[in-house]
């Protein structure tokens, strides 16, 4: 499958949307009454968070398709989806701690349910690569990784529910703005930023798939043209090949 097709248009759309989003953040969205300028981090932190979580669930869905069809390409798609979601998750954690430091003076606060749930999810998905790496047989690796992706993808919403409930009555003021109180201009800015970050995720996913697919085709071509022994056997790795 050609992953490069449409990639340029997608990348341009992403760049455009994110630029517009940042412009809205700094020139259009009003200052928050409570947190002032600090609140602007919200417009990058929340879209990163939501995209990462959706990415993990997306990875789970792709893993399910892999198990159902047995076609290895779905495992590669699942791997890349989870990989990207992990990167976006790291971004979420970084922006979240900066927000916590600016708002509360501490680099980490347990009172924010988003951050806490995120930490748990990241701790879980951080085991994805070690798990893959510790299974040498490639077919089994793909299969077990897909099982992991499905179970952990289902885990994400449950985890958020549990953590949110656990912290509901402990701290009255939390970092996240409740969705219902958001004025229109802020909501629009958030929406545009959401779309931009989501587009970024899709673009990077496609980009990574194109790179992987190209490398695989080069290897396959080498095998085809020069015979089986001209290709070095792949080293043990966590990535599907």
């Amino acid at each position, binding site marked *: 499958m050609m992953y490069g097709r449409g990639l340029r248009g997608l990348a341009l759309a992403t760049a455009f949307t994110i630029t517009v989003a*940042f412009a809205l953040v700094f020139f259009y969205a*009003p*200052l*928050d*009454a*409570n*947190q*002032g*300028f*600090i609140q*602007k*981090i919200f417009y*990058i*932190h929340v879209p*990163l968070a939501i995209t990462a979580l959706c990415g993990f669930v997306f990875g789970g869905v792709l893993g399910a398709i892999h198990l159902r069809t047995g076609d290895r390409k779905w495992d590669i798609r699942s791997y890349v989806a989870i990989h990207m979601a992990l*990167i976006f998750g*790291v*971004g979420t954690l*970084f*922006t979240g701690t*900066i*927000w916590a*430091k*600016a*708002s509360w003076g501490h680099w980490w606060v347990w009172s924010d349910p988003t951050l806490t749930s995120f930490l748990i999810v990241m701790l879980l998905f951080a085991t994805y690569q070690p798990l893959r790496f510790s299974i040498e047989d490639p077919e089994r690796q793909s299969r077990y990784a897909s099982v992991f992706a499905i179970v952990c993808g289902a885990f994400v919403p449950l985890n958020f529910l549990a953590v949110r409930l656990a912290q509901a009555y402990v701290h009255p003021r939390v970092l996240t703005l409740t969705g219902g109180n958001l*004025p229109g201009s802020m909501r629009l800015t958030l929406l545009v930023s959401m779309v931009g970050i989501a587009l*970024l995720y899709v673009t*990077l996913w496609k*980009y*990574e798939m194109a*790179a992987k697919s*190209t*490398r695989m085709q*080069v*290897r396959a*071509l*080498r095998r085809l*043209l*020069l015979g089986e022994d*001209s290709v070095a056997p792949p080293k043990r790795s966590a990535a599907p090949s």
Partner: protein
Amino acid sequence: MSLFAVAPALPLHAAGKYVAGAYIVFLAIVLIYVAIMATRLARTERELTELRRDVEERRRQEAEGSDPSDPSARSGRSDREREPVA
């Protein structure tokens, strides 16, 4: 209802640094990823070049026919390495 802060939580010059930090972290992550992809792209390009060279080498050996393992047949390789690839 005025949404403009009467007294922002942090004075602007202090708050600005944190906000800038957050957005810079985001930018850094994206750019680091681009750099990693650039390295991968370079590697793929190199693999393709090698592949092309090896295929041409193999074709040349088959065209010459007689002795594919003749060491003198390999002398042409250095010429091919300098061949520009479009």
